[in-house]
């Protein structure tokens, strides 16, 4: 008979920036916390990959107010930001980022003041960072240290949560796979926080880590919680394409552009961004991500791409001394791989980078299901149809703190189910995990995942059509049939076949969620561009909510949540500032 392996007040799933922030806040509110991660604690996920900008209205360089940041966030979000969530990000972000400073993250300083860089979409310099390209690692390390010093937080790596357990509309625990042994684990929790990040692993070209296959969305869907605006996948316009670089994150050129500008050129060596109605690049790095993605892919489509199928990014006009001053050690690492920015441009192309959609939450981070919370990129709605540069880390920490406090409060009042009832609820998930290994299986799960990534890149990427999305649904169904009901693998510790099979099960569900939402939105807005419905349609200034019950999808539209204008009006002092 299976018994309960882990008991806790608050279960945090995912130990990236959002998960660690949630654990710290839940513990700070008096809860006993167990934080699990499918990988190592504080080393996987997206936070650690962040290279530079963290947007927050600190007013260190020029006067600023959170309302200005909020106005820019809403503008970038093309009318779809859930305003209470956007406000939380911008307003509480100020304290969160100051708290990180007090914890010694090491934001870059210019004398006494923090440096705040200008980034696209912001009306003034607003982005703090840690040199050189070290923002994510520094944030992750700072949070890891805080978590490790907290006796109320138990950290457990190599644990993959397979399903949440729901009793009478309330999440009461989870079934997980302990990767180190291959054993199933039963976790009892009074409140659970999903902090598993986004879904960029669904795409062939991505800037994600392996862990970002959207598993938190699948957990939430199967538990009965709804998702919001799943069609909005942000493509980062200038991901590294060629020549092959080993050991660098593909979004590495963004910080170069913040500091040095750089010129985006088509295959003929011409500047092209202004052709699509945006300010010329010589005015600075101002074009937003959705617009740049559009411009690059349209040039490629017109036969004016770079040899590897993207655009050129050139820093040849930047003197070597300037390059060295901005990125000294990085310049040496590039030289070791034969790249000299003073001599030749590199090639870049759009890659899946962030997901604006996600789990629908209230401003307290509670989902549709009692006892279930979400934090960070797993949350949908704060960034609308397009995320403003620098909002992701601010969101991770701010929403993490919020979710941790809310979950701890819930855990104080929540009732635990009896252990034998928990075992009963876990039955189907345990049966799934106990599927015996298939001798000499005929499918390769790693190849099936690669196949799904190719389908999503081709048909559910930055440009979409009804025909392509329909094709994607057929391909998803076909991969689902190949995977079958039983799970391949299951042969002891760290079995990569079983791990991929569990991931693919989630990825297929989430891929379908994105595709169905994209099919329904018959307009183009932000990161969702329909070739068959060009242009924004005012009538579509709506969010889409998606649920999944007993194998059926339920998609509906909802008015965007707004705040009274007077609550978010900018004060006079910062309004008068010109930058």
């Amino acid at each position, binding site marked *: 008979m299976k018994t309960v*392996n*882990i008991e806790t007040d608050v279960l945090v799933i995912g130990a990236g920036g959002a998960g660690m922030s949630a654990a710290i806040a839940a513990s700070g509110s008096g809860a006993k916390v167990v934080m699990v991660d499918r*990988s*190592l*604690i504080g*080393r*996987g*996920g997206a936070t*650690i*990959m962040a290279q530079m900008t963290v947007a927050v209205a600190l007013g260190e360089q020029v006067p600023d107010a959170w309302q200005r940041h909020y106005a820019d966030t809403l503008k970038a979000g093309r009318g779809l930001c859930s305003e209470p969530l956007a406000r939380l990000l911008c307003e509480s972000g100020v304290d969160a980022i100051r708290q990180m400073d007090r914890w010694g993250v090491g934001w870059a300083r210019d004398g006494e003041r923090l440096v705040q860089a200008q980034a696209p979409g912001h009306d003034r310099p607003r982005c703090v960072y840690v040199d050189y390209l070290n923002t*994510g*690692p520094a944030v992750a390390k700072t949070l890891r240290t805080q978590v*490790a010093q907290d006796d109320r937080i138990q*950290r*457990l*790596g*190599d*644990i993959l949560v397979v399903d949440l357990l729901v009793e009478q509309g309330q999440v009461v625990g989870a079934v997980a796979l*302990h990767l*180190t*042994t291959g054993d199933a*684990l039963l976790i009892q929790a009074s409140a659970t926080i999903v902090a598993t990040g986004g879904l960029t692993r669904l795409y062939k070209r991505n800037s*994600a*880590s*392996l*862990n970002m296959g959207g598993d938190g969305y699948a957990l939430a869907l199967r538990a009965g919680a709804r998702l919001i605006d799943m069609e909005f996948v942000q493509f980062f316009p200038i991901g590294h394409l060629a020549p*092959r*670089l*080993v*050991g*660098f*994150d*593909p979004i590495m050129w963004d910080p170069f552009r913040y500091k040095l500008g750089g010129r985006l050129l088509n295959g003929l060596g011409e500047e092209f961004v202004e052709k699509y109605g945006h300010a010329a690049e010589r005015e600075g790095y101002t074009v937003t991500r959705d617009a740049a993605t559009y411009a690059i892919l349209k040039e490629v489509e017109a036969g004016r791409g770079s040899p590897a199928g993207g655009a050129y990014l050139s820093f040849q006009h930047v003197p070597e001394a300037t390059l060295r001053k901005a990125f000294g050690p990085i310049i040496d690492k590039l030289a070791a791989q034969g790249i000299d920015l003073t001599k030749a441009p590199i090639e870049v192309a759009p890659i899946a980078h962030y997901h604006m959609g996600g789990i629908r939450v209230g401003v307290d981070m509670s989902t549709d299901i009692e006892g279930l919370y979400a934090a960070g990129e797993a949350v949908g709605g704060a960034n609308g149809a397009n995320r403003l540069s620098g909002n992701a880390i601010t969101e991770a920490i701010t929403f993490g703190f919020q979710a941790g406090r809310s979950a701890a409060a819930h855990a104080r009042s929540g009732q635990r189910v009896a252990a034998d009832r928990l075992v009963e609820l876990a039955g189907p998930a345990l049966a799934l995990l106990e599927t015996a290994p298939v001798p000499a299986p005929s499918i*390769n*799960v*790693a*190849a099936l995942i*690669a196949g799904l990534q190719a389908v999503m890149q081709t048909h559910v990427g930055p440009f979409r059509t009804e025909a392509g999305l329909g094709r994607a649904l057929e391909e998803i169904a076909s991969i689902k049939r190949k995977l079958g009901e039983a799970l391949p693998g299951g042969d*002891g*510790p*760290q*079995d*990569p*076949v079983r791990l*991929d099979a569990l991931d693919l099960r989630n990825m297929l569900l989430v891929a379908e969620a994105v595709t169905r939402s994209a099919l329904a939105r018959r307009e183009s807005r932000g990161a969702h561009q329909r070739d068959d419905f060009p242009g924004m349609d005012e009538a579509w200034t709506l969010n889409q909510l998606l649920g999944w019950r007993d194998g059926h999808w339920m998609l509906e539209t909802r008015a965007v949540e707004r705040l009274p204008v007077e609550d978010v009006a900018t004060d006079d002092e910062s309004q008068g500032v010109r930058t």
Partner: protein
Amino acid sequence: MSKQDNPGMICLNVQRGVGGSETRVQRYELPEGAAASLLDGLRWVREHLDDTLAFRYSCINANACKECMMLLDGKVVYACLARLQPGVEHTVAPLANKARIRDLVSEIAPVKERFGAAGDDDEQ
């Protein structure tokens, strides 16, 4: 396929096994250009030849997660940083000073972050 026909072919001789069980060496042949880094090579093997080969990584190419440590030709490397040489016979093995879990996956998590490892502080 043989090396005479494909001078650019990459050969990976990978030490495999579960826990403390017997170790066997499995040879994988990758066509020229299939992979630049060792991690690319191992991922290519899983997608094209053998999805049962176990190795761990998280960030793929950024050298941020520090999970993909293993031995390449006897030296400790990050698989995402180590470059493969066309035409060379490489040996790939798990870390020598950590317990093997499966194939190239070693027990690298700090003791305090492992489930069921209370009191097991042999590596701290």
